[in-house]
């Protein structure tokens, strides 16, 4: 049995987007939309960081795109890392939260839906597996991407969803 709405539970290997909520001398505390806060250690980066000066690299409130590399047994708390070329601090701060249960609909078959939103709105969109979508682009195009994602969330059970999203973009042009 699976519920129609759900809470994100981290698994090893997930690509997630998180918000830094605390900077310590050796690690950052990151909120990845899970029941527990997550730690990003200063050793698990793709660049070298000076201990005690972590503020120089990633500040409080910044967003990171990272990989879950360890999940603790018992309480499902996770550690994340930035090791790997595709992981990094994200340059801007606009996110939309999506129910993790509706994520497959937002991504679509082989990324069909998310590519449609990307091309239709002209924005850069990254969807983390924890249900956070990050949007970057021109200020006048961002609302379009947000509207499209909200529409997917609202009409996720609709079989004609792709047409509806396409219509949304055509309507604006």
């Amino acid at each position, binding site marked *: 049995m699976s*519920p*129609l*709405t*759900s*809470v994100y539970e981290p698994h090893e290997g997930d690509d997630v987007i998180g918000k830094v909520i605390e900077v310590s001398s050796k690690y950052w505390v990151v909120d990845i939309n899970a*029941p*527990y*806060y997550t730690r990003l250690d200063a050793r698990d980066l793709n660049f070298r960081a000076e201990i005690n000066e972590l503020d120089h690299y990633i500040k409080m409130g910044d967003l990171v795109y990272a990989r879950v590399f360890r999940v603790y047994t*018992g*309480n*499902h*708390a996770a550690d994340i890392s930035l090791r790997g070329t595709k992981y990094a601090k994200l340059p801007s701060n606009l996110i939309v939260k999506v129910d993790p*249960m509706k994520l497959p609909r937002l991504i679509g078959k082989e990324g069909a839906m998310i590519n449609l939103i990307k091309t239709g709105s002209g924005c850069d969109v990254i969807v983390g597996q924890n249900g956070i979508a990050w949007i970057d682009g021109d200020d006048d195009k961002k609302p379009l991407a947000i509207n499209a994602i909200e529409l997917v969330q*609202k009409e996720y*059970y609709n079989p004609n969803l792709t047409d509806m999203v396409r219509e949304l973009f055509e309507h604006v042009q």
Partner: protein
Amino acid sequence: MYNERLDKRAFDELRKIEAEVGVVPNANGSARFKIGNTEAIAAVYGPQEVKPKHFEKSDRGVIMCKYDMIPFSVSDRIKPGFDRRDMEISEVITNALSRAIFLEEFPKSMITINVYITQADAGTRCASLTAASMACADAGLPMRDLIASVAAGKIGDSIVLDLTKEEEDLHEEGATDVPIGFLPSKNEVVLLQLDGKVSREDLKKIIAIGKVGADKIYQIEKEALKRRFSNESKS
């Protein structure tokens, strides 16, 4: 003698019920439950980090419930804030929901439940519990069953279901009020309180009539939750 009810209902008839989920957009799950003139709104947040930290349990999650009656919910304005009665009802709601939610799936975390009574006309703890369980289901928390809760009681020689405030105040008739909470499909009792005097046989009858009412409420709860995920519900 109490041969006919003050509002002309049958003895085993519930008041008019309205149920709705997803009423608080910022919460993870929310519900509104209205029975007669009693209305409860419940909002569920979490699971999240436990604050304050010393409430944390390493093997299971904890429920933080807050029941509050809004000052204008009764005809004489009540003082805002958390009083002894609110504490008691928060406690019984917490206990009942601990039996329904699989808390062991969320160790070291906290589920916050806020219940507000916007209108009160007896049976607020039952309405709160029903609303809270619907809100938990709406939040996608794994549960054994929904909780259906209703008050039953005895006035004079009659066993009655779903008392109003007027009926509760019939002290000369010996009005007895018994709030009961069920897990209907499991046939388990999660809340049972008694206010008044009643014999053992009568209590059994009261629980039996409460079960009949709870089964009806259970159907309404399920329909409300289904409506949330179907086409007609769009508001």
